[in-house]
């Protein structure tokens, strides 16, 4: 929420992703957005709206039969160099991923290898991208990232099942920031967690962003959560970005009816909105009526 926008780190133009099934389905349609350095961009939408597909396609992690049908994805490196992501070949892409742009997947806390220690998994990731690192450096870096996400470095020797859900999620975030990427894409990183743990992790993400100045794309269906943590929010409906605005702007003055509907779907914790559920009388105009038309 800075006054002058930071330089862009990722530009997506006119991106279309199609699933090549019998009747090809357009999962993402002409999506365009610019991610600024150090920004938290929220991507909101309901199941099947294409938000996860979009996130995967940006990283070219989508799997066939999904394919990028059109568009441009440009990464603006800190060095000033522009990288056309669609033009990268497989080897370049592997080098690019995780190093410049990392992902925390949905349900990632169950994505840790159950038979490897946290140390082994951090080491494998590090050595895959920095083959010349010494053992000491690897150990030092691993301890550092764990400390950063608020996990005791003594946990390096633990196996995933010895950690709680929140702890595993932190380890996944630590893994995502291992190589100091400039962008982190997080797909529902806290959905499976309890609110208190979720709050701790959100706090950690915001703090790390402030310290390390990476940009975050935060994908979730939980609009109130996005309103709290993001600088800007994009709302997706049926594969299209229907609205993109600052969090405050979106909350106060949503333009698209779908955004308003989404906002109205969350009763307010401390405010009066939502009180009609109990009484059956809708006290505020604009909130959804009992049944959708």
């Amino acid at each position: 929420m800075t006054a002058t926008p930071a330089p862009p780190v990722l530009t997506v133009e006119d991106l279309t992703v199609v699933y090549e099934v019998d009747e090809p389905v357009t999962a993402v349609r002409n999506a365009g957005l610019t991610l600024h350095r150090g920004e938290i961009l929220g991507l909101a939408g309901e199941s099947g709206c294409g938000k996860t597909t979009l996130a995967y396609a940006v990283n070219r992690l989508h799997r066939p039969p999904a394919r990028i049908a059109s568009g441009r994805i440009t990464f603006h490196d800190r060095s000033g160099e522009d990288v056309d992501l669609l033009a990268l070949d497989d080897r370049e892409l592997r080098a690019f991923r995780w190093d410049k742009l990392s992902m925390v997947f949905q349900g990632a806390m169950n994505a840790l290898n159950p038979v490897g220690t946290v140390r082994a998994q951090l080491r494998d990731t590090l050595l895959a991208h920095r083959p010349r690192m010494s053992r000491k450096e690897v150990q030092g870096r691993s301890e550092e990232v764990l400390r950063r996400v608020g996990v005791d470095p003594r946990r390096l020797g633990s196996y995933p099942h010895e950690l709680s859900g929140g702890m595993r999620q932190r380890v996944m975030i630590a893994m995502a920031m291992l190589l100091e990427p400039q962008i982190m894409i997080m797909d529902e990183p806290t959905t499976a967690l309890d609110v208190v743990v979720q709050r701790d992790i959100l706090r950690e993400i915001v703090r790390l962003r402030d310290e390390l100045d990476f940009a975050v794309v935060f994908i979730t269906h939980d609009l109130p959560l996005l309103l709290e943590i993001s600088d800007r929010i994009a709302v997706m409906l049926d594969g299209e970005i229907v609205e993109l605005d600052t969090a405050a702007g979106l909350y106060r003055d949503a333009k698209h009816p779908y955004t308003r509907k989404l906002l109205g779907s969350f009763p307010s914790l401390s405010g009066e909105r939502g009180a009609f559920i109990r009484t059956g009388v809708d006290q505020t105009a604009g909130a959804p009526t009992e049944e959708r038309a």
Partner: protein
Amino acid sequence: MTNLKPANTTPVADADPAAPAAPARSGWRSLLPTMTPWLAIGLALVGGIVLFGLIAPLLVGDPRQIRDQGLTPPSAEFWLGTTQTGQDVLAQLAFATRGSLQIGLLVGVLATVLSAFFGIYGAYRGKFLDDAFSLFTNVFLVIPGLPLVIVISGFVPRESRGLWTIAVVLAVTGWAASARVLHAQTLSVRQRDYVAASQVSGERPWRVIVVEILPNLLPVIASQFVFAVIAAILGEAGLSYIGLGASNSATLGTMLFYAQNGFALSLGAWWWFVPPGLMIALFGTGLSLVNFSIDEVINPKLKNLRQHRRRARRALRLERELARASRRTAAVKETDR
């Protein structure tokens, strides 16, 4: 990696009363495998052999009739030639096929009933009963099947060693593995909320098992039934071949036993041992093909695998073209500068 499903499978709208009414479909139909060339071949083989076993014995002559035309090759009179003692091989094959099918069916039904009872009921009831049933199943699982069958068959005096005896022996030694699988499947189905929901609704236990759980296990049970039939026919053939088969019945195994005793192989009388051997092999093949199709019902992923691969290749090709085009434009820009 959750969003690999095409977006169109996700229902987007909730209250959608205007949606066209789907045709009423019963759950039973979803249990039928889709027709594929392999399934068609399998069904044709099984159907053909079953028909042969049912009808042919009515048309051929007495298989035991002894003639003085020993070991004649196939001819117009005897389509499959004769045995050492001049018996018609075709007639023998017809009755032997019927005998083997009888054994297969009998054992298939017995083993399936046993495995369903111990596997499903134990898993559903849980606690002590489950432990007891599991122990019992495990004991039968580790008993070496064939040696036990040989011992039991050898122990039963030849006169009383009928079709039923053999069937029971084969079923008793063959149900345990299926019971383990059903046990695991039932445990997983029992965990589902819809089972809990029907219990909360007040359904009686037997109804929960039969109406709510069993239909979801049917593909597994069907697959195991088919497997049990194959195993029984092969097992019986093995027993008969070593002379421990049912005394008063003719099966494909006994045919092979007599062919072996009559030195069919060394005398070059291929028409004597090839038909029963081929019959067993073809029937096994047919049932296996049917079984693969049932597997696709159990695991729908298998069904879509080939189609999925084709689509993936197409998507990949189209995307490569896009990448190449974008590299070209990048190169052009570079030279422009």
